[in-house]
């Protein structure tokens, strides 16, 4: 397969050339002084991917991410499964940030079928989405900390994340893979003591963020390792199509919850943290500030949640008497048999969602049968993988894990 090179190729080589100049490393071509480091799939600093780094001394000259080790073929599988059976499948890749992804998929299905979740279900979805966003940000910060060698940051992140997972277990009944969102609403209602449990959990997290500040963010060694590392300029971030906190840390105030509000985000006022510097430290800081914003979102959502039923009347009118009784008593949504063999009308629908790591895109083309004809699912990490190629060259070997952790790149989510 001989690839003919023409104008577009020199463009991208100029792009990486320009990056070298920016970092004045003076290293140009690949001489024989180069070592090819395979920071492979089984390496404490690489996760389920292989980073091929051509290293001259301590400077990375060229970096090529080799991904696909945990490719689950979700798009191919979803073409042979009923619509509802894809919900647990879709939430598996970004295992920590499951609810925004299922909200996105279910929004696309709802747009296809033209049904709508009642307001209370929208609020419940928003609450669970923000709980998983906090858990996902803590995971990202934990990985960033352990890649810098800060084992306490790692353990603290997974400890505080545990509180959020306990809250989600009370609401949905599962620890991480909730499958809580179904077309037309949600499956369980909020238990009675849930609001004050949430309030206690959020106060604990706020108290802990002060300690995080002292031990991790203001730690001089952490700052030396992260400041001015992996500087992503706003223009480059926009050219490379980056999403999520990495984009907002470079000064671009783009957030799908603000751009195209879904669920209950337009009835809750919250802010998007945006930093200017765009280096690894700014990315970490933006994640901490987003945790604070998520806390205020959850508080407002818990206060403003309307009561009413949690499944759209189009689904609940198909309940048989036993299901109606169960739904009335325990507010647990039973599935009418139609849900298993859903046949949305022929057509296309697209939904966008702001997951923890960035914008996720869902596009379903249906041909009227029980299985979707084509389901396109783009995750935030798949759009951030290009950063490995253009951001890492010119840095040192020790900066590869620092940048990798600050991008909050999650290989299973990128491979889908």
């Amino acid at each position: 397969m001989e690839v003919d090179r023409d104008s577009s190729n020199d463009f991208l080589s100029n792009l990486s050339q320009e990056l070298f100049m920016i970092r004045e490393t003076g290293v140009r071509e690949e001489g024989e002084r180069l070592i090819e480091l395979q920071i492979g799939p089984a390496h404490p600093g690489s996760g389920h991917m292989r980073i091929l780094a051509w290293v001259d001394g301590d400077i990375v000259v060229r970096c090529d991410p080799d991904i696909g080790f945990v490719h689950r073929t979700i798009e191919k599988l979803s073409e042979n499964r009923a619509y509802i059976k894809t919900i647990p499948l879709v939430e598996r890749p970004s295992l920590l940030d499951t609810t925004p992804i299922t909200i996105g998929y279910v929004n696309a299905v709802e747009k296809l079928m033209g049904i709508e979740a009642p307001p209370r279900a929208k609020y419940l979805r928003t609450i669970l989405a923000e709980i998983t966003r906090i858990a996902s940000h803590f995971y990202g910060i934990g990985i960033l900390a352990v890649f810098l060698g800060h084992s306490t940051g790692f353990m603290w992140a997974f400890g505080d994340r545990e509180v959020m997972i306990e809250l989600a277990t009370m609401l949905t009944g599962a620890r991480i893979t909730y499958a809580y969102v179904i077309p037309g609403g949600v499956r369980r209602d909020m238990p009675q003591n849930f609001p004050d449990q949430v309030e206690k959990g959020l106060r604990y997290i706020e108290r802990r963020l002060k300690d995080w500040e002292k031990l991790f963010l203001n730690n001089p060694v952490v700052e030396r390792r992260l400041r001015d590392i992996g500087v992503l300029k706003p223009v480059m971030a926009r050219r490379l199509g980056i999403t999520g906190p990495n984009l907002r840390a470079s000064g671009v105030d783009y957030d799908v919850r603000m751009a195209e509000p879904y669920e209950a985000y337009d009835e809750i006022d919250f802010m998007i943290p945006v930093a200017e510097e765009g280096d690894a430290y700014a990315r970490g800081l933006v994640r901490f500030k987003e945790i604070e914003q998520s806390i205020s979102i959850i508080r407002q959502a818990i206060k403003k949640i309307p009561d009413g039923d949690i499944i759209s009347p189009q689904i609940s009118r198909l309940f048989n008497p036993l299901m109606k009784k169960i739904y009335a008593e325990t507010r647990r949504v039973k599935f009418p048999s139609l849900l298993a063999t859903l046949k949305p009308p022929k057509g296309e629908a697209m939904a966008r969602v702001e997951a923890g790591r960035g914008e996720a895109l869902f596009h379903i083309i249906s041909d009227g049968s029980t299985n979707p004809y084509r389901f396109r699912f783009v995750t935030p990490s798949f759009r951030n993988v290009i950063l490995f190629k253009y951001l890492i060259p010119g840095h040192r070997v020790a900066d590869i894990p620092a940048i990798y952790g600050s991008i909050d790149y999650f290989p299973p989510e990128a491979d889908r």
Partner: protein
Amino acid sequence: MVYIGPLEIPGRLIYDFLHIFILPGFGAILVLVILIIWAERKIAGLVQLRYGPLHVSRRIGGALQLVADLIRYSLQEFIVPENVDKIAYLMAPALALLFAVIPIAFMPTAPGIAPPIYVEPNLLLILAVISLAPIFVIVTGVASDNKFAFIGSLREAFLMISYEIPFIISILSTALIYGTLDLYKIVEAQSKTFLGVLLNPFAALVAYIAILRITGRFPFEISEAESELVMGPYTEYSGLMYGVAMGIGYIKLYVYTLLFSIVFLGGWLPISSTGNIVFDYILGNIILLIKASILMLIAVFLRSVYPRYRIDQAVRLGWSLILILSGAAVAWSLIIHLII
């Protein structure tokens, strides 16, 4: 000033045996190193909201976990990869261990008793022997034919140079104050005037930071940085060799903190040489070990607070701040020498 010379022959032999094999020597190493590793994992557990080692010997908080690890290492089969320079690969950790342990024989650890090998300038001898150990760490890296090990040994070489020099300067600057190179006389000088730390705080600070770097403690754990270099120079080792390689860091920490507490904290100071030998020997060593283990606990606590530096930041810090501080230490000790 004559201090009590060597005892008659049989007493000498017994004391030498005790010195090397029981108290400040291998016995103390085995007990203290295991306790320090356990304390490090327990403190890290406390700071990180979890238990720390608990499963083995549950009642005493999992203290025997390290014994279990040692047994596991010794029973594990260690694989010698075949494209490895066999002799260097096998000898290097043993030699590194040897040169880390030898200085104990030169250190006086009890009032009124000479160390097994007594040489007039034994401070110089100790410094010379100690600075040999890192060379063998580099040999382990180069011998095992692995890119990560090679880069790890390069880093060890960089850091060795940039931190050994300030360490040696700061230790010698305190010797400058007392005007002698004999550790026993240093301790006696400290008993007359103030402790070394008070006399020359700069030297103490530089020496302590240099100890953190040489033994690979936390902000400077760069040559074995697992998130970049898997295990640095020891990537290709397994089984007992890996256990020894891991132990070298802690044994060096023990030896360096012994030296630090003799030079700066006055060794066995509160007690002076009383009548009978056995009482002096035991009490002197116990006090010295307490001071050394306090220093070790501090060094080990840093693991749960600091991440690791990047190699160029650590080297730049070494050449700039630490070197200047050690210069200040020498100047300060000159002034102090004139006053005392």
